[in-house]
């Protein structure tokens, strides 16, 4: 992507939007946006409608606190406007934590976020801040920045009682993974039988306290390239070890690998017989699928388009359990060259037996061309791939951001229940296609 000078239909917001998605997904946290009026509305119109379950804060409508700076502030600085907004946000909006986030305009003007935040703290407000101008990068970068702010600036929770058997889940980016809420619940469910509890950090029941417990965890579990920075920070700060997985645990092989690895790292008991029982139950479902599988022609060459960890997980289940043939894998998160070197080889080796093409692209036009050239008979991607799949007369299952034509609240594709959900969704897409 070194030659890129533009991205057609860019399918990820900016760093500011990532911070809004991240802070907003923690109950009781209110972002305070220091920006021109529309920055938060871009998020409200372009991210929240297409990213599955709304984060708790976004479920209240327009960005609840935004300085809406005008020309005067661009010329003379907007620091005093932020001071005023922060002071009044605390009075108007009920929250446990206020997270000040900045934008291109306020960073270019040079407003001092840290000083304003410090002032707020001195007045006793629970407030942290993150510098998140859009020019810092994609929504994913905002996720990393927001997580760093939470870890570095939240006052530590008092440790009372026995240490909890806790692992943190890192790398599921709220909304950019439209199944974020479902995936977090499913991951927690997978881990529970090991005798450990997952600190999922976002969504239902997750509060500032969940983040204050982050240092107490015994292990950080990195579920996408976007969780690694946070894991490294926690290792440095709290000496917490971490383990990373190339893909989400979708399908029996990945689930077993996930559980075995965690059990080993945590010194826990992986119960192979319980796993086998679940695997047999899945096989029984597959047997009941079989007639439809053949009648509806499930064995197809497919393209999958989406974020790294999801396309990895989906490809693994489709190829290694369901007998479909991967032909084209498009990773749409803007991975840096370093990240690509680190993460792509695992994906490439997964699809090597089928000589599938693996590319990192986010330009909708280029992706459409790749799909067209691939000659696939099935596409798993975002709603942006609807146009090309319709043109080719090929069924599309929408699994990645942006999702415009299906409703996702608590659904996910992780674990055995997730595998079954994916099979149902895929089968439905095949049945609905001409």
């Amino acid at each position, binding site marked *: 992507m070194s030659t890129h000078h*533009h991205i057609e239909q860019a399918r990820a917001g900016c760093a500011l939007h990532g911070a809004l998605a991240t802070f907003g997904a923690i109950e009781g946290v209110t972002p305070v946006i220091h920006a021109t009026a529309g920055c938060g509305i871009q998020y409200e119109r*372009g991210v929240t409608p297409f990213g599955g379950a709304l984060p708790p804060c976004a479920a209240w409508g327009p960005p609840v606190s935004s300085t809406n700076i005008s020309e005067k502030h661009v010329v003379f600085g907007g620091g005093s406007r932020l001071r005023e907004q922060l002071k009044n946000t605390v*009075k108007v909006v009920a929250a446990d934590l206020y997270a000040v986030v900045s934008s*291109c305009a306020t960073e270019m003007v040079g407003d001092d976020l840290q000083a304003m935040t410090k002032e707020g703290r001195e007045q006793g407000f629970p407030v942290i801040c993150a510098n998140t101008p859009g020019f810092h990068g994609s929504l994913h970068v905002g996720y990393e920045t927001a997580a760093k702010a939470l870890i570095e600036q939240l006052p530590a929770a008092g440790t009372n009682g026995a240490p909890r058997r806790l692992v943190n889940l890192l790398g599921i980016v709220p909304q950019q993974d439209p199944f974020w809420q479902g995936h977090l619940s499913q991951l927690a469910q997978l881990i529970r039988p090991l005798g450990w509890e997952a600190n999922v950090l976002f969504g239902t029941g997750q509060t500032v306290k969940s983040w204050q417990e982050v240092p107490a965890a015994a292990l950080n579990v990195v579920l996408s390239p976007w969780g690694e920075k946070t894991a490294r920070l926690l290792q440095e700060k709290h000496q917490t070890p971490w383990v990373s997985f190339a893909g989400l645990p979708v399908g029996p092989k990945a689930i077993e690998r996930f559980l075995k690895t965690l059990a080993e790292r945590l010194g826990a008991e992986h119960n192979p017989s319980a796993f086998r029982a679940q695997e047999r139950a899945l096989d029984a479902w597959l047997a009941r699928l079989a007639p439809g599988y053949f009648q509806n022609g499930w064995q197809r060459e497919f393209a999958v388009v989406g974020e790294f960890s999801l396309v990895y997980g989906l490809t693994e289940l489709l190829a290694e359990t369901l007998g479909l043939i991967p032909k084209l894998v498009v990773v749409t998160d803007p991975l840096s060259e370093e990240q690509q070197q680190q993460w792509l080889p695992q994906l490439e080796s997964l699809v090597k037996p089928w000589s599938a093409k693996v590319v990192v692209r986010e330009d909708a036009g280029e992706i459409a061309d790749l799909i067209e050239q691939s000659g696939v008979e099935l596409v798993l991607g975002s709603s942006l791939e609807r146009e090309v799949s319709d043109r080719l007369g090929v069924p599309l299952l929408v699994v990645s951001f942006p999702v415009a034509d299906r409703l996702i609240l608590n659904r996910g594709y992780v674990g055995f229940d997730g595998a079954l959900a994916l099979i149902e969704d895929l089968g439905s897409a095949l049945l609905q296609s001409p």
Partner: protein
Amino acid sequence: MSTPAGRAPINREKRLNTLSAYLGETSALLREYARGEDEVNVDQRIRTFSHGKPDDLLVALEVLSAIPDAITVIHGPRGCAVSQLQRALLARGRAFGRWTVTDLDQKATIMGADAKLRAAVAAFYHRYGPKVVFIVATPAVAINNDDIQSVVDELSGELGTIIIPIYASGFTSKTSVYGYDLVAHSLVKTLVKNPPAERGAWVNLLSLAESSGDRDEARRLLQALGLETLTLPDGAGVQDFAKAAGARFSVPLDFDAGHYLGRAFQDVAQVPLLDVPRPIGLVGTREWLLTVGAAAGKQSEARDFHAREAAALAEILEAQPLRGAKVYLSLAPATALGVLNLVKETGGHVAGLTVSHVDQLHLDGLRKFQDQSPALQIHVGEGQGFEEANLLQRLKPDLYVGDGGQLVQAARLGIPSVFLPRIPVVGYRGVRAFARRTALALKNRAFVARFAGGPQLFADNWFQRSAHWHIKQEVK
């Protein structure tokens, strides 16, 4: 005003005394506007606490979305483009203008990114071969002053195509409606060079980012008068803008959105701009139709058509579907002033009114509102749910009709709510749809009832304050 000059129009505050923050007596507001007709005479207000709200960039992008055969290059960091995902996704197979973003990073933002823009425009143009290319500026680009004009000048010749820059900034005006002016300014400046010598038979229907249902209804009304209609900019081709300069007259579907464009055609090519309300409710639709009829010499056709259509709605309106219901409106002003008719015609009472802005274009409408509801205050603010929640808590309306995301905050107070942008509102079809949707909202309150008494976003203290607490006079 003659041919639009300069990169961008002057902002709405200076042009029309537009206010985006006010809460108080309508009469007091009217007195302020009466202090002088043409100069800046109202006191600008600001908020010391605010929610996010749309800006000129978002509105400009919406308008451009409806122009086919065009591509849009959004010059800025990627976040400035993300709302455009709606454009592709909600188009659901219909033609939509392609868009791309130059995805500026920190270095490009600091050092300037003219070269990047040039490469993006050329590559995107070559891929899709459109009739026109829009380049849209963003806050970051407005601040570091990238030289968009030289890219336009160079590439127009090199590619042999029309390239139109739209200088959005996100901060030049406090109101998002300025985005309509920005696009209209650039369109007329670039595409209407030589007004035709002769007048044609058609009339211009000024339609900016309207829903297709409302646009179709307006066209049906004009067709009923036997008028040939040129709709623009929604759905218009490049050649239509030059053609529009030869029209008999222009009629806006929404005078807030269409005012700058209509005035530009009037000033550049002497195409009269009709002064009409938005055709909403029987009263508003009748006035719109009769004004158009008078300008076209089709008065009797207009009267007859209205009589027929109104008769067909008599049964619905006699049933008074909103009988006795207290209705809160939170809408863009031209729409709100029209929906006031609808509420009355369906038997409801307006309990409160929020408009996204007010300016000199609304004085007649506000006088009518003042006459009809002298006891009611007017609230001016786009997206300011905290003020609305405060007002709603006091006014306890039976129904909320809104066009913004803050509708959720009304619903979560347990108030039945209708999201107006998704239903037809214009003309006779609008009467039918409004009567039906609002009646359904009142018929079954089960969904919103689940929120009543639940957790609230705002601090208890806020509900003790007066709703105008955070609106202050601006100190220059």
